[in-house]
């Protein structure tokens, strides 16, 4: 029974997400459309599971929600800071820097979320991963202290993601 369930729903979160997206696309909640969304979620995640063989072992949804709220707040604050830099700092005084973030995360999903978070926060763009995936290259627009930015990323985002993707 359990094996049949795993065969039918290899990625439960993908199924759930597709059902929610389908319901949102309809713009109204009706039982028929929710059921159809769940059917679509099962068919699509089953059909594409061959390209996605590894599932994340465990995932803490509650901590992910608090993490998302924190990231949205950081995006708002950083936006205002970067807008100030864009408008006031002339090109000659701009101090861009490369920083190297040591990665303790090993799962591809977790590294993707970290890199996406860094890019969405204005002022930092994640540029590249080292060839064996032990460090992340980040470009900073304007900073006096690159080490402080690196420590901020490690302490603020990476430590939280380590608790989300156990």
């Amino acid at each position, binding site marked *: 029974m359990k094996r049949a369930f795993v065969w039918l729903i290899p990625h439960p979160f993908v199924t759930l997400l597709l059902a929610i997206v389908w319901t949102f696309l309809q713009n109204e909640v009706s039982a028929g459309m929710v059921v159809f969304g769940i059917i679509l979620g099962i068919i699509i995640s089953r059909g594409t599971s061959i390209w996605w063989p590894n599932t994340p072992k465990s995932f803490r949804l509650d901590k992910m929600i608090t993490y998302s709220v924190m990231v949205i707040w950081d995006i708002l604050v950083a936006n205002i800071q970067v807008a100030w830099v864009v408008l006031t700092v002339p090109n000659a005084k701009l101090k861009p820097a490369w920083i*190297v973030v040591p990665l303790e995360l090993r799962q591809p999903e977790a590294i993707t979320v970290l890199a996406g978070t860094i890019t969405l926060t204005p002022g930092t*763009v994640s540029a590249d991963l080292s060839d064996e995936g032990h460090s992340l290259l980040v470009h900073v627009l304007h900073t006096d202290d690159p080490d402080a930015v690196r420590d901020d990323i490690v302490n603020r985002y990476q430590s939280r993601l380590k608790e989300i993707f156990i």
Partner: protein
Amino acid sequence: MNAEIIGTYAVAVCLLIGSVFTLVGVIGLLKFNAPMSRLHAPTKVGTVGIGMLLAASMIHSFVIGQMSLHELLIMGFLFVTAPISANFIAKVNIHRGDCETPPSPPQDDTWSTLNTPQEDRTNDIASQ
């Protein structure tokens, strides 16, 4: 002061904030001189600029009584896809040498963008 007037003001404020951030993003794109610095400007437009314009659209749809939540989906898809395009542009900049060469990573050999086989590297230079 009924709900409709408050809603209209909220829509106007959201539109204003969104437009200001979009304008700042465009100024940044035009003003900076290095390709990697320029890349920072659109990330701002992609988050707060678009987010506020979509919030205005959502509030408007609530005020006129036709609830619409499509904007949440647009925001979600943008937040998922925007970092990928930024990452690709950064990789192209590194690959073409348009920016300062990044410091080599402490543990591994090199960055994955620069990790091309030797024969491909010579082909690249020959084709340019």
